[in-house]
């Protein structure tokens, strides 16, 4: 046991030592009565109060509806995470740190075969072993589950078939790990091997034994799990293209690589309720799945989220091992702990889909993006996971930030006998974004224009609508581009650097919270709910289901409550670990927490604020509209010496009713079109980002090193700039991994060759460039204090920025990731051969002489700058939809104005098959259309 970090009694004098050390506990608590830890009320911090309500905080993007709630307490200030002390002292408790009395250890038996039918399982020898307390197989939990209600295709353990090496077959709980491992060896499984499939391209063919069977909705006898088609706009726009870029990409699968392996502890308490401890991003999904699989009502289960040692999407599915632990604990009557080896983390996977993506971009003679065609075939592995959504995201999230003349998307997700792919930071958007941005670079080269000017001249403005009907509100894309251009010295460097050195640009666009809660109708139940409770002591307890996975969501929620109530952060206590106490919430995925939970928290805090102000009204006689919340005081606006302390007001408000309790909820506004899949990609707001990266390429070895990144991200409003910058830099790191070295390597036999952190090559501190994070604040009208997401969007631009910089350095345009040295070296060799160059050091770098279009684009960009500025500040509120750049009147429906401009719902299989691999999925019919009646 460590000493603990106890509150120092009467510690008003202590705290800071000459040697810089600091007391860990909450410092210098004052005598009872004052509330808070600082003895005197701080003066009002006008720098933290917006201009619109009389403060000094500049608001270039205009005022915000939450401005009147600002008290200058914490919002916008770099704030250490409220749970940082637990983390730096080793007291944070992650999955494997939950040690209950009498615990036993669970281990999982996994399939040694890619694909096999289970003929029989004999567990008798294992059960008879001394020290073995429970053995379970698929028979113990026949019900299916899955993260999406439409695709429940997983079991706790294999029923009938195993679908990939590492698939769960059985599990054992024993007094210690060695005994459990020994018992696994005593389980006899009789398998009948089936023909496995690893190549997603072959998943489009009919086979004898598809990996799953979807009945009448099954596509032929293929392994296609989901196919998607969307088309919008006017195809005639691309007929006279002045420039065209078509590129077939191959993206390897990548893994989240969080440092904490999955771990779970299950315990059935004395009342027969399940207490399940798990590091989950979305405890609610686990909660639902447990209820189904265990056949127990949800209210008899308490899901306790431990600290989460990194998630990035990889801890957002309900997992079979969570079921296993619960089943073993139920059988043995003892708490069961299961902790994964790193290899098992890769077996459960849910990483980014390995993908074949073909992107075709066409630009007309005015440098407008006349057409964007995307075809994405994604390798789902053995289970559906989030794949249904991923299939859409691979296309639809490419419909902004540029105004498009037409958009055509075909997507398909296939099952293969590999660990399941799922959601990973930048879900579905990352690979296509990379291909699109590299394509734009290619177009710019063909048009002999600067790629940044090309982008600036084609941006959708704030308060507009994309071609697929997404509602764009705030939009800081233009400012992000301008900032990185300026700070990186782009105009001096681009196409001007010596061989081996290059600079590149990439942009990003991402959802700030998925608009559709998967399990319920957003119009009937809120996305997020937050409860606040304030009792006599003045401490504020906030109950939320927001799952802090290190991104600082607990801190953000605490901050907004602290801001509204003008209370120091150490008076706000966020309780978010238990499903018993936290309101239903979808947890941390799709970058929703800041937007949705903070909005809900603000609403709850407003209720508390109102009670306090009314009490102060009672006491002071001044109407609440004339009262101001300052640090632990409520004062009269025109004479701050007139006021009451927070506790006085609180106690007044509590008269007759005790603790103040409030709740707030967030519901997204109605949005989106009516076409098939219109809900995919809808979000109440979108984030935008632009990065410039500099690279050094060793032309002899092909080693690429990223040396410098300027990263501008529009997060609406940085509630906590420290956290936002952390997300930006961290995203750069993760994206660099995918672009430079990370891949899940499946060898010629389909086995995952690198299920460990040594050979799954995550960049180290040495590979990390110096990143200059640039926060762009476009102040989203619906975001909490204007905030939008910053957790996933910042990952997108780094991949294309590096790819484009590599081209600038060596004149070779990549079409597969990662850019491992052997790949880059191979590309350099090809270029040398085609140019007849002997020594790679004699190659020439690409150069740019501006063509006639450059001037035109620059002036259009300048014109749009004015347009966007006015729209951002809502000085111009006229409607704007994608298509105005192509001459349409935004006030009339577009399909009325131009024949051919339409959403195409009815796919033509033949023409789609020309698009790429995914298009070919449409050559097959679903079972229901195949037999008999038509």
């Amino acid at each position, binding site marked *: *046991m460590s000493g603990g970090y106890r509150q120092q009694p009467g510690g008003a004098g202590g*705290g800071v030592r000459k040697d810089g050390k600091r007391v860990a506990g909450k410092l210098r608590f004052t005598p009872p009565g004052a509330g808070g830890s600082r*003895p005197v009320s701080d003066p009002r911090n006008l720098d933290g109060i917006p201009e619109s309500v009389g403060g000094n905080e500049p608001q270039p993007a205009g005022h915000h509806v939450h401005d009147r709630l600002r008290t200058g307490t914490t919002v916008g200030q770099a704030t250490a995470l409220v749970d940082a002390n637990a*983390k*730096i002292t080793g007291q944070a408790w992650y999955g494997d740190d939950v040690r209950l009395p009498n615990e036993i250890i669970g281990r999982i038996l996994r399939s040694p075969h890619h694909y096999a039918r289970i003929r029989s399982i004999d567990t008798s020898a294992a059960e008879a072993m001394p020290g073995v307390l429970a053995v379970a197989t698929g028979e113990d939990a026949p019900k299916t589950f899955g993260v999406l209600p439409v695709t429940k295709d997983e079991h706790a353990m294999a029923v009938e078939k195993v679908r990939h090496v590492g698939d769960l077959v059985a599990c054992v709980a024993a007094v210690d790990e060695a005994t459990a491992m020994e018992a696994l060896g005593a389980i006899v499984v009789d398998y009948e091997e089936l023909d496995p499939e690893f190549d997603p391209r072959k998943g489009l063919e009919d086979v004898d034994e598809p990996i799953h069977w979807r009945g009448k909705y099954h596509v032929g006898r293929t392994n296609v799990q989901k196919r998607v088609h969307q088309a919008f706009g006017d195809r005639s726009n691309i007929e006279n293209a002045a420039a065209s870029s078509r590129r077939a990409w191959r993206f390897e699968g990548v893994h989240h690589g969080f440092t904490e392996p999955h771990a779970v502890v299950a315990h059935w308490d004395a009342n027969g309720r399940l207490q399940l401890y798990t590091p989950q991003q979305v405890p609610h999904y686990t909660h639902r799945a447990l209820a189904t699989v265990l056949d127990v009502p949800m209210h008899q289960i308490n899901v306790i989220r431990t600290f989460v040692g990194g998630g990035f999407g990889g801890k957002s599915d309900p997992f079979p091992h969570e079921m296993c632990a619960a089943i073993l604990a139920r059988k043995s009557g003892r708490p069961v702990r299961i902790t994964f*080896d790193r290899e098992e983390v890769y077996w459960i996977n849910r990483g980014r889909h390995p993908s074949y993506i073909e992107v075709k971009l066409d630009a007309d003679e005015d440098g407008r993006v006349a057409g964007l065609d995307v075809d994405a075939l994604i390798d789902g592995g053995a289970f559906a996971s989030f794949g249904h959504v991923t299939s859409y995201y691979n296309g639809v999230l490419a419909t902004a930030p540029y105004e498009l003349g037409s958009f055509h998307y075909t997507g398909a997700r296939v099952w293969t006998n590999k660990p399941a792919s799922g959601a990973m930071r930048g879900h579905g958007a990352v690979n296509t974004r990379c291909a699109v941005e590299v394509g734009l670079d290619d177009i710019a080269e063909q048009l002999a224009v600067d790629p940044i000017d090309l982008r600036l001249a084609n941006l959708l403005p704030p308060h507009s609508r994309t071609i697929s009907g997404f509602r764009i509100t705030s939009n800081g894309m233009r400012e992000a581009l301008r900032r990185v251009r300026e700070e990186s010295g782009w105009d001096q460097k681009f196409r001007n650097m010596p061989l081996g050195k290059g600079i590149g640009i990439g942009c990003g666009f991402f959802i700030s919270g998925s608009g559709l809660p998967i399990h319920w109708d957003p119009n009937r139940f809120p996305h997020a709910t937050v409860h606040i409770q304030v009792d006599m002591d003045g401490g504020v307890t906030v109950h939320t289901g927001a799952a802090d996975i290190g*991104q600082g969501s607990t801190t953000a929620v605490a901050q907004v409550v602290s801001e509204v109530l003008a209370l120091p952060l150490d008076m706000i206590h966020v309780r978010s670990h238990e499903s018993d106490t936290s309101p239903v919430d979808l947890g941390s995925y799709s970058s929703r927490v800041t937007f949705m939970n903070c909005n809900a928290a603000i609403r709850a805090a407003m209720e508390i604020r109102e009670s306090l102000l009314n009490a102060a009204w009672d006491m002071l006689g001044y109407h609440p509209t004339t009262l101001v919340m300052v640090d632990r*005081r409520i004062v009269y606006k025109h004479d701050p010496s007139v006021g009451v302390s927070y506790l006085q007001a609180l106690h007044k408000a509590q008269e007759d009713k005790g603790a103040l309790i409030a709740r707030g909820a967030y519901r997204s506004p109605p949005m989106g079109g009516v076409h098939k899949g219109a809900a995919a990609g809808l979000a109440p707001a979108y984030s935008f980002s632009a990065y410039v990266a500099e690279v050094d390429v060793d032309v002899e070895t092909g080693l690429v090193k990223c040396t410098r990144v300027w990263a501008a991200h529009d997060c609406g409003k940085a509630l906590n700039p420290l956290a936002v910058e*952390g997300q930006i830099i961290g995203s750069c790191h993760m994206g660099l991994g995918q672009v430079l070295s990370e891949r899940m390597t499946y060898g010629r036999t389909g086995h995952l060759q690198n299920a460990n952190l040594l050979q799954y090559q995550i960049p180290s501190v040495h590979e990390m460039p110096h990143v200059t994070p640039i926060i762009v604040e476009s102040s989203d009208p619906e975001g909490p204090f204007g905030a939008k997401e910053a957790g996933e969007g910042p990952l997108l631009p780094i991949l294309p920025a590096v790819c484009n910089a590599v081209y600038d350095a060596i004149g070779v345009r990549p079409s597969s990731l990662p850019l491992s040295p052997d790949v880059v070296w191979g590309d350099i060799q090809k270029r040398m051969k085609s140019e007849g160059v002997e020594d790679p050091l004699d190659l020439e770098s690409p150069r740019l002489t501006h063509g006639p279009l450059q001037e035109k684009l620059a002036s259009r960009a300048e014109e749009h700058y004015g347009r966007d500025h006015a729209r951002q500040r809502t000085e111009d509120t006229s409607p704007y939809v994608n298509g105005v750049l192509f001459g349409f009147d935004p006030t009339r429906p577009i399909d009325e104005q131009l024949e051919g401009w339409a959403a195409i719902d009815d796919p033509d299989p033949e023409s789609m098959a020309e698009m790429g691999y995914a298009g070919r999925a449409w050559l097959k019919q679903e079972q229901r259309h195949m037999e008999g009646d038509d």
Partner: protein
Amino acid sequence: MVGEARVPMLPHAPKTVWKADVNDRAVAVLAPSNAVLLDVLRDNVGQLGVKRGCDLGTCGCCAVLVDGQPRLSCMTLAGDVEGCAITTVEGLADGHHLAPIQTCFAEHGGSQCGFCTPGFLISAQALLVQTSSPTLAEVNEAIEGNLCRCTGFQPIVESVMAAAALLRGEGEAPEPPTHPHADPHPSGPDEPQLPPGHAR
């Protein structure tokens, strides 16, 4: 058809009393002969701040100080370090006083999810004991055996640099000056004492 090559895990290796100084306290626990330091620290001594990330020496989450040297506890045989002075993350603070490196990790965003943090703190602490003026290259080298997936390393490097500055006495004043005996009730001097409900 090939045979089966399962290596037996039982019977357990013989257990002996394992003694060491963990965070300045003498401990003696019963551990098997083949025990790895990480397992002994977590399962027997109860130092759950030492984290198991990859268990194969790459992630650095399990780093501890053994006689002042940073070591990967997952790659160290417990028997080999018997009798040594071992410091885990729980032992970095001086009583109730956090080490500068801990404070700086919190304040400079060096810790996000926090799982790798104990290992980084150990590596950084080992460096700062040697020098309070490390160069960027020295900091990078000191933490090159630790893997962080959240922060992108840059805030960690900044945290180490800030801690070094604190140790040199160059840090910014940690907190604004306080007036411990000032009026503990943060209320204004001329507060009107209206009876409840009076003005309304």
